[in-house]
């Protein structure tokens, strides 16, 4: 099979205003980003022939993509929901590429909106991962705890400290302060992080992502067609996925995750290495996730994340700017959809606030991570 690196491109992106959107339901947020994304690409609903959504947890309609398509009177030739947690937005872009490569669609709209910042009364039951009855009887309830288990192991194996994780939170907040569409825009210090309360020890409040309302969308088409669109297209250079376990009860390790293999596959497809990346948008549901993923992606050796994230290295202007939009920690938690849109906008080169624009950004990598540290997807994007 021939390498498809560079043969497909993102030609439209959009994000809604994020934070608290009490008047908008999950499906309204979807429609809002669909419209904004079509406008960004200069397209009409009728131009879209492929459509992908991320099955929302709280708006549990079956066949969500077809429902949302119908709400816009879109009649796609290819549609489905994906369910890989925070790895889904990247998986949507990958599936869009596959659908076009397979000849099932030409122009694929991928959308994900989320409603966790304010209530979204829904008549259905929320979707759960399904094994709660092997966790909850012992008082185990949350994603925070799953990641706290990993943080505890990272601390045990490599001597990482809570203060080291603070550097991730502080750098991410710095970028959010430069983003007009970020929820948390008050600067944070290491001391602020250390003074924040434990949620699930060893993780503190400021190690945790926000709960947000909002959404994002991207449109994928062939690189050949991409040059006819109004905005500068961004090429899809590398793609990978890897899913090493499901429950923490069968995780072989908690300090090397699916990101290692997933990124290797993406680098291989792109013919690039970690050194070629101008920036990285790293799924950051918790600070420890950023640190482990930076190691898994080969930006430093395993266990050296605690030093890598210091001294401005992961800030705009540093060696590898990470989460230039403020991430899930400080911009908004849309399960990584905005990591994808941010990477595209960075590579367009003239869309984000100038103070957080990565200079001469040509290539960037995006990570998605989901479930109980069990699902991973990687995407390498490049300026065309």
């Amino acid at each position, binding site marked *: 099979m021939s390498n498809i690196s560079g043969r497909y491109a993102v030609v439209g992106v959009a994000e809604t205003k994020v934070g608290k959107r009490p008047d908008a339901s999950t499906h309204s947020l979807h429609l809002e980003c669909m419209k904004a994304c079509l406008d960004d690409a200069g397209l009409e609903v009728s131009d879209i022939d492929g459509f992908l959504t991320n099955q929302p947890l709280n708006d549990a309609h079956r066949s969500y993509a077809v429902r949302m398509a119908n709400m816009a009177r879109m009649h796609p030739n290819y549609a489905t929901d994906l369910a890989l947690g925070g790895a889904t937005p990247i998986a949507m872009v990958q599936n869009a590429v596959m659908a076009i490569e397979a000849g099932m669609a030409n122009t694929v709209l991928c959308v994900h909106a989320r409603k966790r910042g304010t*209530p979204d009364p829904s008549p259905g039951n*929320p979707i759960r991962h399904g*094994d*709660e*009855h*092997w*966790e*909850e*009887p*012992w*008082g*185990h*309830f*949350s994603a925070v*705890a799953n990641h*706290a*288990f*990993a943080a*505890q*192991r990272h601390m*045990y194996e490599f001597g990482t400290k809570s203060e080291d994780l603070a550097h991730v939170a502080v750098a991410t907040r710095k970028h959010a302060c430069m983003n007009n569409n970020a929820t948390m825009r008050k600067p944070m210090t290491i001391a602020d992080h250390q003074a924040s*309360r*434990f*949620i*699930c*020890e*060893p*993780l503190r409040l400021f190690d945790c992502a926000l709960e947000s309302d909002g959404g994002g969308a991207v449109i994928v088409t062939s690189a050949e067609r991409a040059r006819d669109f109004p905005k500068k297209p961004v090429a899809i250079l590398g793609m990978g996925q890897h899913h090493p376990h499901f*429950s*923490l*009860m*069968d995780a072989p390790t*908690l300090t090397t995750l699916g990101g290692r293999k997933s990124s290797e596959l993406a680098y291989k497809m792109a013919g690039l290495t970690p050194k070629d990346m101008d920036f990285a948008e790293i799924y950051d549901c918790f600070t420890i996730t950023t640190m482990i993923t930076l190691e898994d992606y080969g930006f430093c050796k395993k266990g050296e994340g605690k030093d890598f994230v210091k001294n401005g290295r992961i800030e705009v202007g540093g060696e590898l700017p990470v989460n230039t939009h403020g991430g899930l920690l400080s911009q908004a938690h849309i399960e990584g959809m905005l990591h994808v849109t941010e990477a595209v906008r960075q590579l367009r080169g003239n869309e984000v606030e100038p103070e957080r624009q990565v200079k001469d950004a040509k290539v960037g990598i995006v990570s998605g991570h989901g479930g109980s540290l069990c699902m991973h997807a990687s995407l390498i994007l490049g300026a065309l």
Partner: protein
Amino acid sequence: MSETSDSRGRNIRKVRPFLEELEAKPFWANLREHKLTAQRCNGCGMFFSYPPQGSCPHCLSTDYTWTQLSGKGKVYSFVNYHRAWHPSYEGKTPYNVSLVDLDEGPRLISNVIDCPVDQVTIGMPVEVVYEDNEEYTLPKFRPA
């Protein structure tokens, strides 16, 4: 907030095991007799992990035997919950949740009890204790 709803008014299920789960019925029945058991493959000899399943995760054989474990293990990782996600844990924080690697191989998510939360360590040897209530018995662990 109440037993059946959280602070956002969303329904919360009771936090109990699902005793009707087909493959897991022997696990819960054996615990009633204070026996901690796991499925062991009669094909390759390996232990299954939890939750129980219909065929061996290592060789896909459907021929297995519920086998009593020593009840001894080591803490692989642990956390201290400082927030109560469920009303039944209000006033009980901080409490420990641990990943316990049993000597025979399977891992359980459980609690280390009879030990201050700040004394639990990775690698700490533990042994099973059985916590009985009216409907079911939960395996928990104490320092060995």
